[in-house]
């Protein structure tokens, strides 16, 4: 029987896994991992969170930010090593164009989505990653830590990205 504090740690990380795994999985897909790779990597990230908390040497003030940072680094390493993966962008583009498969999206909306999708593809990878993480609720500091850039760079990435998206949708 495990001591109560260990059981509590199991519960805590399992809860975090349940709450955040979908966000982390989707984020890894945007980095270019295939679905099986993204799923494996997501599980690995939460396992590492457990190991880090269990070890206790590293102070993790913000677990969600930590999880994204580790996922980002692992995702980049894996996507460079497995570079022939079909990117999510291409998959979505195909799906958006495939009218049969995207019937759940209204016809009027589709054109807007396609414009948005095109504008997103023109953003730099960092701009896209910033948008994605911000939409997942991460603060500028957490995004900056994840990407290894300054807070002002994050705000500049976001500003430029939104300016482009605005232009694509409204002009």
């Amino acid at each position: 029987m495990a001591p109560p504090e260990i059981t509590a740690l199991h519960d805590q990380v399992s809860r975090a896994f349940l709450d955040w795994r979908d966000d982390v999985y989707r984020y890894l897909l945007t980095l270019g991992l295939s679905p099986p790779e993204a799923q494996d990597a997501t599980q690995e990230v939460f396992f590492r969170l457990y190991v880090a908390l269990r070890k206790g040497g590293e102070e993790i003030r913000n677990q969600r930010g930590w999880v994204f940072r580790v996922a980002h680094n692992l995702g980049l390493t894996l996507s460079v090593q497995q570079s022939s993966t079909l990117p999510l962008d291409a998959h979505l583009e195909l799906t958006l164009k495939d009218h049969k498969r995207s019937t759940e999206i209204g016809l009027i909306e589709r054109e807007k989505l396609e414009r948005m999708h095109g504008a997103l593809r023109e953003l730099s990878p960092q701009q896209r990653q910033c948008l994605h993480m911000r939409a997942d609720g991460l603060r500028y500091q957490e995004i900056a830590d994840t990407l290894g850039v300054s807070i002002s760079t994050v705000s500049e990435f976001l500003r430029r990205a939104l300016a482009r998206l605005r232009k694509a949708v409204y002009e």
Partner: protein
Amino acid sequence: MSKRHLEDEVLLKLLDGELPQPDTSAHRLHIEACWTCRTRLEELENAIGEYVRYRDAIRPLVPEPPAPWSDLRSRFTEHDRAIEKTPVAGTPNRRYKFVMRPLSWLAAAAAALAVFVVVRRFESVPTVSAAELLHKASAVEQPASSRRRIQIKTRTRTFIRAASIPAGAVLEKDDKAVEQMFRKANFSWEDPLSARSFEAWRNQLAEKYDTPPVIGDSEDILQTSTSTGELRRATLTLRAKDLQPVSETLEFATETVNISEAPDTEITAAPATPRPAPASDPLESLSHRELLVFSALHQIGADLGEPVDVASDGGRLIVTGTSLTAARKQQLQSSLAAIPGVEVHFEDPAGSQRAGSSPGDRIAQATAPPQLRLQTLLAGRESVEDFINHVLDSSDAVMARAHALRTLSRAFSPAVENGLAAADRDILSSLRNGHAAALATRLDELRSTLKPILGAQSPPAKILPAINDTWQTAAEQSLFAAADDLDQMLNRILAGSKSDAQDADFMRVAEAVGRVQTQLDRFQRITGMRP
């Protein structure tokens, strides 16, 4: 009210609650009073809203995880047991060492789940028309003309051969090893770049996973993966207009083979030549063009510490050369002329003309210290001055390569590299590996020059784990830092005006050389240059 309008960045931070409280209050007051800023704030909010709606709308289209999520509790328990079994005394970090090897874990997990996962993948991913498209391409495929040639590229070699060869054709020894891999995987070696061969391989797989095909304006891409057999994943690119195969990537268990169409007339193996960028995607084309610039600079040796700077501004690439001779300027201009969107500038700051200093006169610039110990060690084989100049020149050469690698790592971050086309990634690896190999040679030369003072005290390079890092980080943070540290130490010890180097100093040099070697080894393992 302040009359100055707020910048977009401030408006965005205001929306995101990223401004300090006093600023927030002041800006809110401004916005209440200023219609222009309020309108821009609303536009920004609308753009955020559109993005969020886009994310929600595409959510059902994003592929679901292919297998049920595993219960991590059993892994936690397993980990707890592993810790309990490890003696507490000794090296605490060792206990967690396996955690640093995600790939070995992934491989183990993949093996354990292989059958189950593959079946699930097959069920959950819609098989749009991979099979149909492949069948159609096979049906319209023309028999390969005798003039059609293909380029086959493995990790170690690149060669060009006829697209279709008769069974049992006599092969060179090196080609035989590649042929063996194809045979084991049941993939046609006789006609590898062919939709029919791809289809035949795909059809005989016991289990397979087709990624939905990508239908593009000029190309269609098919990808099939399997967890069994020698060939794990194959990607075939077809020309959209006639569905003829133009390139293919075959990922075998131990090797990746890239096959592409070669021009009919080209009969010898040649290094990949950069192609002009497609104009359709400005971002992709920027990275692509930047790569062409690096490649062109490399060809004229202008990427080895010369004052030539590459920067991007919007869609333009600006190459700035400082204090170059007229002939060098001309050379630089003509080497970059063919790359679109590149501006070449030259700067000649007054009084900074390069004073043709020969490498040999660096020590004469300082008041030479006596260096008595060095004199004894050299024992008349070489003058102290010559020795120091040789050492510093060799160290310069090491630094030039470390610098070139760092520049590449900054220009092509993992994310940028990942966005490059396969052909561009090949060019980037060839530039990178070329510099790393040259660095290795230069380091050997430096070590050999230093022999009189290092003797047998050169410590062996340590083996650092190569996993969980990118080559960019290794080049930027570790290799460059180690080379720079060595270079500065050599300058301080050998060319410093107050120094009279002693054995303890030489020992430190030996250690610094060892550190560069260690970092270089690690870099080469990350890039796959060594096992």
